[in-house]
């Protein structure tokens, strides 16, 4: 390993993936780099991740519903592993896969690993290149891309490794899916029905979005599943103030609840 370069440790991450009902659908194992040791300007130059604002997803859905379009959902498998690294990055050998007798040696990465600070940006550059080749033009105001005009128009929302695509012409969407699948290993999730806790239901002439599963989970988490429901959100004229001298409650728990409701 060259002098002055940092060795980055690796670690196995195990995760259960659940669907909107909370059932386990996948067992995942992923090798992650301990990117937290990386220093800006030394180990990497820039960071960036494509995160479309939820407003934009709302706009996309509203726009699709308005025009009677269907919204499709694609997911890139192990997206970050596609990112080409610009910097020299060295990692230790992963647990369980060490080369006997050469345990102290390191690997130089040519593509990114999860956990590396530059991984999201590297993936984004790779995706951008592919989308560009497929004829997409980037939107200036958001992480969205568009291609074509008239009935061939496609609109694409990018959320790291989730792609949400909609357009007038189902054939054009199919074509796009085929094109993407030849570029990356992808899962075609079909019509968008669940995304970041949002449950989407696409019907003939309308689309609904709700957070029922999430809301139930939140209620359960805070022991409110069995509470008496109310139709009143806040007492009218309830004037909350700092309540100086009032009996204090657990601030962490309070903040957690607020965080979940935001």
């Amino acid at each position, binding site marked *: 390993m060259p002098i002055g370069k940092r060795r980055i440790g690796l670690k196995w991450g195990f995760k259960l993936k659940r669907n909107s009902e909370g059932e386990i659908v996948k067992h995942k194992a992923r090798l992650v780099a301990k990117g937290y040791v990386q220093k800006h300007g030394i180990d990497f130059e820039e960071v960036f991740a494509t995160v479309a604002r939820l407003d934009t997803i709302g706009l996309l859905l509203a726009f699709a519903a308005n025009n009677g379009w269907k919204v499709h959902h694609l997911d890139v498998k192990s997206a970050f592993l596609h990112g080409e690294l610009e910097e020299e990055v060295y990692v230790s050998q992963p647990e369980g896969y060490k080369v006997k007798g050469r345990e102290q040696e390191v690997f130089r990465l040519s593509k990114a690993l999860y956990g590396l600070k530059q991984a999201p940006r590297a993936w984004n550059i790779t995706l951008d290149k592919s989308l560009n080749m497929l004829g997409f033009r980037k939107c200036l105001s*958001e992480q969205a891309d568009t291609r074509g005009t008239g009935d061939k128009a496609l609109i694409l929302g990018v959320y790291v490794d989730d792609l949400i695509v909609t357009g007038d012409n189902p054939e054009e969407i199919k074509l796009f899916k085929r094109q993407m699948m030849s570029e990356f290993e992808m899962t075609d999730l079909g019509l968008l029905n669940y995304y970041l806790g949002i449950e989407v239901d696409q019907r003939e002439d309308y689309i609904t*979005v709700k957070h029922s599963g*999430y809301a139930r989970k939140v209620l359960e988490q805070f022991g409110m599943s069995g509470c008496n429901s109310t139709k009143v959100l806040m007492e009218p004229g309830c004037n*909350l103030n700092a309540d100086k001298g009032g009996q204090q409650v657990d601030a962490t728990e309070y903040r957690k609840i*607020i965080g979940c409701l935001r």
Partner: protein
Amino acid sequence: MHSRPDLSYSVGVASRFMEKPTVMHAKTVKQILRYLKGTVNLGLVYVQGGSADKLEGYTDSDQGGDAVERRSTGGMAFYLNENLITWTSQKQKIVTLYSCEAEFVAATSVAKQALWLRNLVSEITKEKPKTVTLYIDSNSAIALMKKPMFHEGVNTLI
């Protein structure tokens, strides 16, 4: 939660006391959860609409509703045709003396959001940015926008 505009004001108010919450605040939060329990299945409906994409923004504000700092809370909502796409409820950053000023402040932030949204819509539709209609229920704020006069009272903004 991006399908529950009804929660946004109450949660926003409750979040002001995160630093030192007391029993009184915890009661409010509990009530929000109880309300959530009764409304878990509520959400938004996006319907099929006309061919023209009409963007409309609504804004309103109270006046010094925050009992601690006497700052006002403004809210806004944007519709694409019949479909609600984005909304916020936010405590304003400055203290205003009149409701007209508070409404003006809320209208300013709604105008900023409108500019962003209409650019995004225009990029998606590949049409020229269209006029966004903003609705404000304060005649004096509208008058102030059309003709920014230096009033003796209304000067905190200028």
